[in-house]
């Protein structure tokens, strides 16, 4: 009777261990069963396509940030100063956006270099080295993604601050 309980339990535990293996735990020692070696050509194709898409997205985002700073935020702050109504919150947000945009440029460059290195590495001959480079590229992409989100949040904060300023002016007009 005990055998009927213990055997399925062992099988269950073994199955659970096998199924819970992390996806990244690849067997690099056996080239015949290594998915990196097997799918090398298609992996490179996907990465090339991603590289092209990323370059386009960076260009679109870069132009937008440039326009936001050059055509909106900088002239607004100048106008506030020349009208003797400097707004500390808007000035602080301005410098934060400038700094984060600088980070965006350097982080994109770092990520693109990493992706270039990854594309140049040999996934047939050195899958382990290729995978390590992939992990590093992912890390740099995550950093870039966080900065993009931060910039978007700062832009939203700026817009909220301008709305608040507008409402203050509206309230003043009503009071007068």
């Amino acid at each position, binding site marked *: 009777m005990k055998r009927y309980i213990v055997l399925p339990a062992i099988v269950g535990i073994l199955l659970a261990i096998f199924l819970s293996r992390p996806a990244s735990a690849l067997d690099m020692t056996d080239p015949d069963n290594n998915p990196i070696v097997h799918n090398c050509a298609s992996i490179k194709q996907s*990465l090339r396509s*991603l590289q092209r898409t990323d370059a386009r997205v960076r260009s679109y985002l870069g*132009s937008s940030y440039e326009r936001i700073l050059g055509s909106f935020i900088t002239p*607004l702050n100048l106008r506030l100063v020349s009208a003797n109504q400097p707004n500390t919150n808007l000035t602080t947000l301005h410098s934060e956006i400038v700094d984060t945009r600088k980070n965006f440029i350097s982080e994109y460059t770092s990520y693109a270099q990493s992706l270039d290195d990854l594309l140049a590495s040999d996934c047939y001959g050195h899958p382990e080295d290729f995978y390590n480079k992939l992990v590093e590229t992912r890390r740099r992409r995550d950093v870039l993604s966080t900065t993009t989100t931060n910039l978007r949040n700062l832009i939203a904060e700026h817009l909220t601050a301008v709305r608040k300023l507008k409402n203050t*002016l509206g309230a003043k007009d009503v009071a007068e």
Partner: protein
Amino acid sequence: MSPNRTNHNLLVLGILSVSIAIITTVVSLVVYHNSGDIYLDRSRPGFLPDEDEVQKLPETNYTFPSSGAITEEALNEYIEHFQEVVDYIDDLESPFSSAPLSDESLGI
């Protein structure tokens, strides 16, 4: 000066000019690559978007005037034009998300 010597000098001048051109081109390409400018170059060959892939910024030459009084109307106009650029950014689907580099996406 003999014609032979003139020909020789001309040949040396040609070789020298070509060598200098090659060296300066190689140096500038190395600087272009190592500085990272290659990744920021919007006209990089092979990376230009196809016609159907172009996602143009809202076509406006609007720039908020940097002088004048700060009025409610001026800020309304500011917000309206600003929002157009923000909408454009939001139309870009989750830029640089981790999904395309995942093991599943790459078939690893």
